[in-house]
Structures are given as structure tokens and as C-alpha cells.
């Protein structure tokens, strides 16, 4: 037992978790004794706050995320690298600190889909309450908690990390790298996520209920909410640290570890997309960290960043929170979309057997979005009471962002044109994405028009926009990507029929659920309300019913994934006849990706060009990229 407690692992993690909590308790107690507070040892509020910071760190240390660096720091000889922590030989390896980017990718994807289902379930409760006017199932406190946690989970623990997960798995393979640049940092980035997710979800058990100030957590509401708010404030810090570390890792990997011959303009667009996304993350994410620091300081140490009633009555700055928050959270919406653009570019090119149309413009428009993305944050603040002149430049930049996005949409359309379209599940989701995202984007452009936004801001029109871009945009591309790389990741083929059913159910019920929200918004139904005027009942009922079916169609996906992984037919190395490097190795790839780093000799999308080759391998067997590779040789995970 004690031996178990000494080696890195779950037992030690549990032990350190407890130690950390005890430490927090002592820290607070001693501090309050020093400050001569009365009852220093029984202030649940302070103890929880410090505990929430200490506990995850304790857990991570116990699990062994830092061992190697501690060895190094203490100047002791580090264990010689035996790759024991690399690769998965049994399912157990997915539940420990693992440095293999493929294992980490799977860990990311599975954990974030878990949070999709949790967050979605919360949405189901929300829809149940909203099915009729009046209060039926939950009180307003709970309802506000529901949509706040719903959004926080789906944004910070589903969309952002799942993209990081897919890229984690595919990107190093695509650029011919054996792993990420900093594998241990990579492992740490992953393990921070479950901590963050647990914090956000656990807030429901906090006295006073979950944090209920929306995922935007505007101050001063968030500074005088019950304890649950702290779970958000601190949970987001871990999620943010995680995504910064991953982004940094991606950038270094892409810049320094590309295979010989892979110039920037020979990189697949998925790599370009994650390059741009990582730039956004590294530059923008610190801002949300700071915004939550401010809230925490106001709450825990009585700072006055947002208390506007001190002294003269104009001390704290309430609008400052919104500027800082949106300076991250607008770029964040592109953090949640650009990787999807990358996925769709891969799929559309492969599935219509044509080179991507206007490759360079595709790459440049990504960079254009990155740059513009930092110049539009105040379009979330048109009615916030900020200096009114700021609205005008923000309206223009916001509208202009539609141009690079449009370039991408039209180029995808041109790629389809005269191709040989394989309309299987990934392609269907890609096409579905094109339509729904265009709609969501256009409603976004309408929102950019100040006078119209003044009317629909904070109504269900916004909720509709949110879901058309996040569900119809991000989530559709995520589904497409999961189906597309499923054979590569699992070595198994998914069930095509179920896949198609899943697509059609999702597509139909998605639109029936969220399209009517535009009308509710136009008709004046505000968002974030547990109860609404009777005139909105019919549409809301319809929305709720549709949303339940939408939820159920998710179960088809779940079943398909699980069943196919356990019993699906073995997948060929290159079932889609794709050119990019990840398809030139076995499915799933060998533990170290390549026996020898391939050499890139051409563009990634040269479909239809006779005898075109993207990368060549030393071993002649795999030299012909277009021929369907041999059945997986390396151990398939079951």
C-alpha cells in the first residue's frame, strides 16, 4: 500500500488531493489567526476558495504530471528515458499520465465528449423548464445555474478541448513528426481539463447553488453571487492554463518539427488552422485569466475593481470587466471555429477528389481572421453603455470579418464543383456545416448592424446565433472530423448506416430546435429567463420537443462509436485514398508514428493530378500513397 502511495498514480493522487485540502485549511486558518479574525478555523468560504486552487494542483502532482521536472529541479539524475510513459498497451494506459500524442488525443476527445453529454443534459433540463410559461421543475436560481454551467462546460470543456484533442492526434502525424514538441507539457495540459470540468460541474453542490451569472460572469453580479461562482472563477483558470500550454505546444511543433520538404505552403489546411488558432489562444487567453483574477480578488480579498459605489461613486469600473472579458471571448469564438475550418478543408478536398480551391487564399484568410478577430470585441457591448463612438469602428471591422470567412465558404463550394462527391457521413456533416454555419454567420452580420443589435441584443435571436455557429458550425465539423479519422484512431470502421441516420436526425432536429429561436428573439423574448410571456408558448413548446429528439439522436452517435470500436470491421490504413501523411501509416499508427520520418515532395491535395505524391517513405511498400494500405499490423485497441 505505502509503495502504491509513493509511485505516481491514482492512489498517490488521492493522497495528495487530501494533503492539498488539509494544507489549504491550515493556510487559511493560520492566515486568519495572524489577522486576529474571530473563529479563524471555520470560515467555509475562504477555505473552499483556497481549497479549490490547491486541490487540483495536489491531484496533478500526485498523478505524476510534475515528477520529471521535480527530478530535474532537484538536480538529481533524471530517470533515463525508457518510453515507459509513452503509448498505450492496454486501456489502463489511458488513465495515467501518458506522453504519446495519440493517447493524449484520445484522452482529450473522450473526456470532452463526456462533458458534451453532461452539458447537453443540462440543456435538456432547461428545455423542460422552458416548455411552458411559468415555473414547473426548477426555481430561477437553479435555472440560471443550468444555462451558465451548460455554456461554460460546452465552451471550455467541449469545443475548445475537443479540437485540441483531434489536432493532438492528427497534427504531428500530418507534419511527419514523431510526437509533439513538449510531450510532458502536453500530458499536463490534458490532465488539467478533468480538474476544471469537475470544478465547474461540482458547483451545483455548493451552498447557494451553481454559479448563475451566465458563462460571461459579468461583474458586479459575479462578485456578489453565492459561493458557486468561485468554482467558475477558478475552474476557468485551469481550462485557460491548459489551452495556453497546448497552443504553445502546437506552435513550437508546427514551426520546428515539420518533415523535410514540408514548407509552410505544403502544410495541410488543418495544420494552418491550428497554427492560427494557437496564435489566438496564446495572445487572447491571458485576458480571461486576468478577468477572473479580478473577480476573485474582489470576492476573496475585498478588492474594488468593480465596486462602483466606493467613495465618490465612480471608483470601480464595471465596463472594464466586459472589455477585458470580450477581448478574450470574441477571439475565443474563432478559437472554436478555425480548427473546424481546417477539418472541413481536409474532408471536402478528399471526399470530392479535387485539390482544395485557392489553397493560398484559404491559408491567408485564416490569418486575416486572426488579425481581425482582435479588433471586434466591443460588438458584444453595443448596449453596454460604453463610449458610443467605439461602436462604429467595431461595426465595420465586425462586418469585414465576413469577407475572409466568405472566401473560405466560396472556395469550399468551388472545390465541390465538378468533383466526384463521396456522400458518406463525414462529407454529409461537412456539407451540413456549410449551410448551417452560413446561416449563423449571416445572422452574425445582422447583429453587427448596431441599430438592429440594439433591438435583438440579449434576446433569443442571440441564442439562435450562438447555436447556429457553435452547434451548426463547430459541433458539425467535430462530428465530421471524428467520423473521418475514426478508422485511423481506432483501427476500426464505424457503421456507415448509423452514421447517416445520425446526420439526418441531427440536421433536421437541430434546425427545428434553433431556427424558431430567431423568431422568438425578433418577437421580443429575452434570453436567460426561466419564465416568459404566454405569447411565446407555442414556439417554445415546439423547440423543447425538437430538442429532446436532438438529444436522443446524440445517443445514436454514442452507440455507433462505442459498438464500432469494440466490434467494428478492421479499417485499412488509408480507406479514403487520402494523400496526407497520417493516412500513409497503419491504422492505428505505430507507437512512434513512423519508422523513419517521411520526405514531403508535393502539396497535400493533389487529387486528380496523375501520379501525384505528397510524401514518400524510405520503405517502398508505402511509397505509393494512393493505394489502399495493408490491414493494420500494430496492436489495435479493443
Amino acid at each position: 500500500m505505502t509503495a502504491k502511495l509513493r509511485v505516481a498514480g491514482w492512489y498517490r493522487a488521492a493522497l495528495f488531493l487530501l494533503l492539498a485540502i488539509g494544507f489549504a485549511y491550515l493556510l487559511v486558518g493560520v492566515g486568519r489567526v495572524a489577522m486576529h479574525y474571530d473563529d479563524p478555523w471555520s470560515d467555509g468560504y475562504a477555505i473552499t476558495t483556497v481549497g479549490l486552487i490547491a486541490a487540483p494542483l495536489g491531484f496533478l502532482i500526485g498523478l505524476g504530471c510534475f515528477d520529471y521536472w521535480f527530478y530535474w529541479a532537484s538536480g538529481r539524475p533524471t530517470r533515463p528515458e525508457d518510453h515507459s510513459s509513452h503509448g498505450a498497451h492496454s486501456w489502463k494506459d489511458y488513465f495515467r499520465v501518458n506522453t504519446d500524442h495519440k493517447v493524449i488525443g484520445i484522452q482529450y476527445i473522450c473526456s470532452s465528449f463526456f462533458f458534451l453529454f453532461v452539458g447537453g443534459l443540462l440543456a435538456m433540463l432547461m428545455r423542460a423548464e422552458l416548455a411552458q410559461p411559468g415555473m414547473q421543475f426548477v426555481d430561477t436560481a437553479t435555472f440560471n445555474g443550468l444555462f451558465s454551467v451548460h455554456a461554460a462546460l460546452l465552451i471550455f470543456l467541449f469545443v475548445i478541448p475537443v479540437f485540441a484533442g483531434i489536432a493532438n492526434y492528427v497534427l504531428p502525424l500530418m507534419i511527419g513528426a514523431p510526437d509533439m514538441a513538449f510531450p510532458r507539457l502536453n500530458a499536463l495540459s490534458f490532465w488539467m481539463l478533468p480538474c476544471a470540468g469537475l470544478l465547474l460541474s461540482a458547483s451545483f453542490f455548493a451552498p447557494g447553488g451553481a454559479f448563475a451569472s451566465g458563462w460571461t460572469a459579468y461583474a458586479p453580479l459575479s462578485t456578489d453571487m453565492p459561493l458557486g461562482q468561485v468554482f467558475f472563477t477558478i475552474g476557468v483558470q485551469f481550462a485557460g492554463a491548459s489551452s495556453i500550454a497546448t497552443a504553445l505546444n502546437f506552435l513550437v511543433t508546427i514551426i520546428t518539427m515539420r518533415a523535410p520538404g514540408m514548407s509552410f505552403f505544403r502544410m495541410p489546411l488543418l495544420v494552418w488552422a491550428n497554427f492560427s488558432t494557437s496564435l489566438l489562444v496564446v495572445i487572447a487567453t491571458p485576458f480571461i485569466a486576468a478577468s477572473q483574477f479580478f473577480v476573485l480578488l474582489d470576492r476573496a480579498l475585498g478588492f474594488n475593481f468593480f465596486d462602483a459605489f466606493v467613495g465618490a461613486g465612480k471608483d470601480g469600473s464595471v465596463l472594464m470587466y466586459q472589455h477585458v472579458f470580450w477581448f478574450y471571448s470574441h477571439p475565443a469564438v474563432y478559437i472554436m471555429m478555425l480548427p473546424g475550418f481546417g477539418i472541413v478543408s481536409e474532408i471536402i478536398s478528399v471526399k470530392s477528389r479535387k485539390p482544395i480551391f485557392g489553397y493560398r487564399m484559404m491559408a491567408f484568410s485564416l490569418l486575416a481572421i486572426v488579425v481581425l478577430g482582435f479588433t471586434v470585441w466591443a460588438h458584444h457591448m453595443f448596449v453596454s453603455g460604453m463610449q458610443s463612438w467605439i461602436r462604429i469602428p467595431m461595426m465595420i471591422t465586425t462586418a469585414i470579418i465576413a469577407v475572409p470567412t466568405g472566401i473560405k465558404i466560396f472556395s469550399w463550394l468551388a472545390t465541390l464543383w465538378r468533383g466526384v462527391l463521396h456522400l458518406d457521413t463525414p462529407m454529409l456533416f461537412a456539407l451540413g456545416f456549410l449551410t448551417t454555419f452560413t446561416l449563423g454567420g449571416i445572422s452574425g452580420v445582422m447583429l453587427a448592424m448596431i441599430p438592429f443589435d440594439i433591438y435583438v441584443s440579449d434576446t433569443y435571436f442571440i441564442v439562435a446565433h450562438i447555436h447556429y455557429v457553435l452547434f451548426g458550425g463547430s459541433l458539425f465539423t467535430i462530428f465530421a472530423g471524428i467520423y473521418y479519422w475514426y478508422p485511423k484512431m481506432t483501427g476500426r470502421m464505424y457503421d456507415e448506416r448509423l452514421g447517416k441516420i445520425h446526420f439526418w436526425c441531427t440536421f433536421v432536429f437541430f434546425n427545428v430546435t434553433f431556427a424558431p429561436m430567431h423568431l422568438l428573439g425578433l418577437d421580443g423574448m429575452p434570453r436567460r429567463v426561466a419564465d416568459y410571456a404566454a405569447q411565446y408558448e407555442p414556439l417554445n413548446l415546439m423547440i423543447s420537443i425538437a430538442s429532446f429528439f436532438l438529444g436522443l439522436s446524440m445517443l445514436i452517435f454514442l452507440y455507433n462509436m462505442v459498438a464500432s470500436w469494440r466490434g467494428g470491421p478492421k479499417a485499412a490504413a488509408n480507406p479514403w485514398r487520402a494523400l496526407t501523411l497520417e493516412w500513409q501509416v497503419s491504422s492505428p499508427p505505430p507507437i512512434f508514428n513512423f519508422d523513419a520520418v517521411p520526405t514531403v515532395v508535393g502539396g497535400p491535395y493533389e487529387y486528380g493530378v496523375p501520379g501525384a505524391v505528397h510524401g514518400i517513405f524510405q520503405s517502398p511498400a508505402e511509397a505509393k500513397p494512393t493505394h489502399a494500405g495493408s490491414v493494420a499490423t500494430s496492436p489495435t485497441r479493443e
Partner: protein
Amino acid sequence: MEAASASTSLHHPGEADHHGPPEAHRSSRVDPQLLGMLLFIISEIMVFGAFFTAYFFIRVVDGNPWPAAGTELPKAIAGVNAGILLSSSITLHWALESIRRGNRAAFKAGMLSTFLLGSTFLFIQINEYVHIGFAPYNSAQASIFYGLTGLHGAHVAIGLMILLIVTVRAFRGHYSPEAHRGVEIPGIYWHFVDLMWIVVYSTVYLL
């Protein structure tokens, strides 16, 4: 902060060969650890950027008096302190040059003096808090003052921790003219912390 300890501490001789065959192809002349550190510093700068945004709103946009009525900022002491911190940058550079030239004695001396100078800075800063005569909750100006200087102080503390490690290893005879990245890259971080103080000092105290 995880990101901090991570990317700052990944640097030790032979880091490149920790993952299995095949050897990754180097598609850029930039050294990975160096690049990682630079990117990390960019995001650090953005953290400070956010705090400066708060400062800008509270002081400029809302036009609050600076410093808050009836409070006084110890320009002089902080100025001296700035000098101390800057000199620590110089000694650190000296230490690095020495190990490059293989002069162990000077290397150790340099590291040690850097660490001591850094600690002095932190000590004086804390002492300043004790005697400054206003608390974070007195006014928004006080909040952002403590916010900015505190954020910087936290960075100094982290920097000191890393420097301590390097110093200890220096005295244990680690590093060599060939392999001294473990000094170089924490060094970059320390120089960044010092430069940041110049910005904080001139905006918060002088302006």
C-alpha cells in the same frame, strides 16, 4: 502557472532524445525550448496587458485621481528598488557569459548575487506594502496598484524559485560551456520580469 513551471523547466541537456525513434526533423533553426519560452513570455505580456487595461480604465477612462486622494506612492524607494532589480539582470548576464567561457567561480558568484539581488527586491517591495498606508480595498486605485505590483511580485517570486534551482545546480557543478541552456532560458524569463518592472514602475509610480 503550470505553463510556467513546464516550459521554463523543460530545458536540460539531452531533452531532445526523450521520445523514441525516429529522431524528429528540425524544420527551423530556432531552438524549440527557446521558442517555447518566447511564446510563453508573449502570453505573460498579455496577462500584464490585461492588468494595464484595468489600470487604464480606472485611471484614464473613469478619470479617477491618481494616486487616490490622500495617498502617496514612494517613488524614491521604488526607484532604488528598480535599480536593484536591473543590476540583477546584469549579474545574471555576467554569470551566463562566465559559464560560456567555462569560468565556474564567476558563474557561481554571478548566480548567487543575482538570486540575492532578486530577493532584496522582493523584500523591499513587501516592506513597501507594509508601510504604504493604504489597503487594496480602500479604493479602485489602491486595488489596481496592488494588482499590478502584486502580479509583478508574483512573477519575481517564481523567477526566484527557478533561479534558486539553477544556483543550487551551479554549485553542484552542473552545466558546462557546451550545455548551459538550463541557465540561458530561465535567464530570458528573468530579464523579462526585470523589463516588466520598468514598465510597471514608470506607469504606476512615475506617470
